[in-house]
């Protein structure tokens, strides 16, 4: 897998979340992601960016344009040094929330992307990686 381009977006405020969404939208357009997939990856990014700010106490998003076997995609890595998630399995359940949310951010985002990896431990921060591939259509 090659990284064609990379960019770091700090995430500390509500404003940063909006900016992260805009950047993901712009890069998604660049690889000509369809409107539905664009909306999915932007929405997933919005969820993870907000978790980073709200639950993780701030961090950053690493945005990468990747390519592999002639397909292109976006890889988004969200990282924070916050409290971490004690039980990932529980946190990934639909409806689980500690902050009065809908509890659908993590589980929903996972369904919106092609690849989803979460690494977290209590006291060690959280890292979530999302990948959305552009489907190659053969004609």
């Amino acid at each position, binding site marked *: 897998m090659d990284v064609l381009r990379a960019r770091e977006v700090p995430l500390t405020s*509500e*404003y940063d*979340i*909006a900016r992260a*969404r805009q950047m993901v*939208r712009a890069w998604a357009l660049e690889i000509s992601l369809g*409107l*539905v997939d*664009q*909306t*999915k990856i*932007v*929405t997933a990014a*919005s*969820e993870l960016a*907000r978790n980073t700010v709200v639950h993780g106490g701030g961090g950053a998003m690493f945005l990468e344009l990747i390519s592999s076997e002639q397909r292109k995609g976006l890889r988004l890595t969200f990282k924070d040094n916050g409290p971490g998630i004690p039980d990932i399995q529980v946190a990934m359940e*639909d409806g689980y929330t500690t902050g009065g*949310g*809908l509890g*659908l*951010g993590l*589980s*929903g*985002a996972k*369904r*919106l992307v092609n690849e989803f990896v979460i690494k977290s431990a209590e006291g060690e921060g959280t890292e979530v990686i999302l990948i959305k591939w552009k489907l190659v259509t053969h004609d």
Partner: protein
Amino acid sequence: MKRQKNLVATMIIEHEGELLIDWLEERSRRNTNLMFNSGLFNKEEFERQASDLLKIFTKGLKEDTVLDIATDEWAEMRDYLSELSNDKAAKGYSATETAIFVFTLKKPLFKLLSREIQAHPEQLTNDVWEITALIDQLGLYITERFIKNREEIIARQQDEMLELSTPVVKLWEGILVLPLIGTLDSTRTQIVLESLLEKIAATGSNIAIIDITGVSVIDTLVAQYLLKAVTAARLMGAECIISGISPQIAQTMVQLGVRFTDVSTKANLSDAFAEALKRSGVVVTKRQESF
């Protein structure tokens, strides 16, 4: 060591004409293409402002003045620079172009002082350095003011937009519509939905259409706000209809797991309006033209 500020001030006053010519020349040399092309540079205006600045500058240079523009002695200078930066910002100058005005005084002043220093070496050696450091302070101050000014404008526009973006409109007796547009951050969503509830109370409406055609992303936070608004409206006796959910947002919401259960949704605003009229018992018919 006692500084000879009076001497520097006297020199500036004595050679003001020469200083202004050199300053203008330096300023023109540093003119950006942009300014030349836009015809923004105005010689008369420059001369007036340069001469005003020199007057206030020499006034500040007293025998025992502290060369720190944050002190009381430089209040007049600070006011003048603030005004000047507002003026430049209003006329469309960039921050750099604004700062250059002050910084280009450095070279001519340095030239003048190093020439005059021959006659008064003992008094002036120290001052030359300090005066150029003072000009740096002035340049930084005017830049700071310029940016502050821009920030104030942006903050004001943001506030105005927040207000503008809450247009709850009465479509019919008892029917309100709230068209949501753009990015819904938590602050904006809260303000928008609060104003909907207020309007429901004020008009006694029993149907509220929330149209999200102009919204590009519905994430869990926005969805939660919408659901809360629907619940609150219901407590006030009004039913909500959510319209304008685009196909891509519908698909995304399904995967996200967000469900607008027991809220009626319509593809577009006009369908929602028709539904609202029907519920209100209003029948719309085309007039039959009789020939």
